């Protein structure tokens, strides 16, 4: 059985226009899950709704986010029945979400192959079948048909801990948040730049995205945690508009510490990120192995004090000039980087 996350807070709109955010949360035993989804322009965002699924009988779960690539997929791709025209990026993200969910259901409910090749097949098959009623005349190497990122974490809980497998394409990311050591990236962006701070500074183009008209690759990285942990997947609207990578962990821990429940954490995350991001933002998260929310919050109290109370929020003022900000970024990144990259896959050749 798949447990869809239960909505905890829906904006009070009695009628259209569509909401600019949604949050969900669910609790099952020692599993606590939440998802956050926000749009800059309601109804026109290019992030699909985040995916958070868990199959009780086999203790398998899947987190995933999808960010349609607005630059390469800006062309109109589908005229909806209500008259709205959606871009290729909008359509691609939603089709990839459907494909990932179908793949997961097939694996846990129908014992279909538990392989990346099978997931790739599902993505290709659904993208190939997608409606493309509005064709664009644009060509060129940068253009893609139905382009989207994906960051997914497949996990399985058991007596010996949590087995995880990160799967991704593009620049959406998966992370582990551990009580003792904080935030660790589990993925490496598909870009020519390998340094996470430089990725923040330059916002470079992606070298690989899921799409309907060109080859793409899914990268895989896996591991195991024997202690309680938090796993999450997020689009760059969550982590791409801060000063330095450590500040994303500050957002996670600051909101966790102030929250009373996992649903409250989802809403505080949404309220923290929506005013500062310049993009659609979505996040899917699961906490595994904590007895309840109070224990989850308490487990990260020490890490919160050292990170949020440290130098990562002491941003030089505008009066100090851009060079002062750069020096502060470089210094704080060097002190943070080793832990952040501890579980990161190696640099590609």
């Amino acid at each position: 059985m798949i447990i869809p996350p239960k909505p905890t807070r829906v904006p009070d709109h009695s009628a259209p226009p569509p909401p600019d955010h949604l949050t969900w949360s669910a609790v099952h035993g020692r599993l606590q899950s939440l998802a956050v989804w926000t749009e800059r322009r309601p109804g026109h965002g290019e992030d699909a709704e985040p995916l958070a699924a868990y199959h009780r009988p086999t203790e398998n779960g899947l987190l995933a986010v999808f960010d349609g690539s607005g630059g390469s997929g800006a062309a109109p791709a589908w005229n909806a029945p209500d008259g709205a025209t959606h871009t290729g990026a909008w359509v691609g993200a939603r089709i990839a979400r459907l494909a990932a969910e179908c793949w997961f259901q097939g694996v846990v409910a129908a014992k279909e192959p538990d392989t990346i090749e099978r997931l790739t097949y599902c993505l290709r098959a659904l993208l190939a079948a997608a409606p493309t009623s509005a064709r664009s005349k644009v060509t060129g190497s940068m253009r893609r048909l139905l382009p989207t990122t994906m960051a997914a974490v497949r996990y399985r809980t058991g007596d010996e801990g949590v087995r995880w497998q990160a799967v991704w394409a593009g620049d959406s990311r998966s992370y582990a948040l551990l009580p003792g050591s904080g935030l660790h990236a589990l993925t490496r962006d598909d870009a020519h730049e390998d340094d996470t701070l430089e990725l923040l500074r330059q916002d470079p183009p992606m070298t690989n995205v899921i799409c309907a008209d060109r080859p793409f690759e899914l990268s895989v990285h896996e591991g195991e945690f024997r202690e309680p942990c938090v796993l999450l997947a997020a689009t760059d609207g969550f982590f791409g508009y801060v000063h330095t990578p450590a500040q994303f962990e500050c957002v996670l821990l600051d909101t966790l510490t102030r929250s009373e429940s996992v649903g409250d954490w989802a809403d505080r995350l949404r309220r923290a990120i929506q005013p500062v991001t310049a993009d659609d933002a979505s996040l899917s998260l699961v906490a595994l192995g904590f007895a309840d929310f109070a224990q989850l919050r308490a487990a990260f109290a020490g890490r919160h004090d050292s990170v949020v109370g440290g130098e990562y929020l002491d941003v030089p003022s505008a009066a100090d000039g851009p060079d002062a900000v750069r020096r502060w970024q470089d210094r704080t990144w060097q002190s943070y980087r080793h832990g952040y990259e501890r579980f990161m896959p190696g640099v590609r050749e």
Partner: protein
Amino acid sequence: MTTELEKYHGNLQYAVDIVMCIDATGSMNPVLDIVKNSSLQFHQRLGEVMARKSKEISQLRLKVIAFRDFGDDPSDAIEQTDFLRLPQQVGEFEKFVRGLRATGGGDIPESGLEALALAINAPWETGLDRRRHVIVMFTDAPAHPLGTVGASAQTYPRDIPRSMDDLFEQWGYARSQTAVMEQSAKRLVLFAPEEEPWKEAIGEEWDLTLHFPSRAGEGLEEFEMDEIIETIANSL
């Protein structure tokens, strides 16, 4: 709460350099008129389109390279500005653009690749964060091979590549060691006919390129300035 949130608010602004390569031969009068009539509003309109995409511009610099045909008249085959900062230098930009006349060129092809080579070797911004180096090519004609037609003329650019392969090396590719363009920043937007070198040799082979096919010899009349600005903003 606002003060706390501001701590997380990183640099979201883009430093945008744009080189417009404009075919100024006779058939291009319509697009020249569009650029002329929109030059004063260009900064504002690009800023508005960027704002709709939740992007801001920290610095906008524009350079224009007008080209005709070294095979027809080498003396006026290239006219160009330095990088001009907008809106501060909009007067210089407008004066140059208004002074352009769509004339000459003789038969196709034209000297578009020489203009592209000059654009690639322009003095791009190197210091600010979130840099974008965009070359926009407006032409309704195919191009002469580099280093051939008019290459012996005194006005022919001295320091540009003499072959498509060498020009491609300067444009660069993944992990390229010889690139002049910065991989993270570069974009090429072509408003050009589905003819060579624009369609395959550049549009499909060079990375980070968008190609809006035009009808050969018809002066890009089908394009509106809104569409051009939207395309440039999408490429960022």
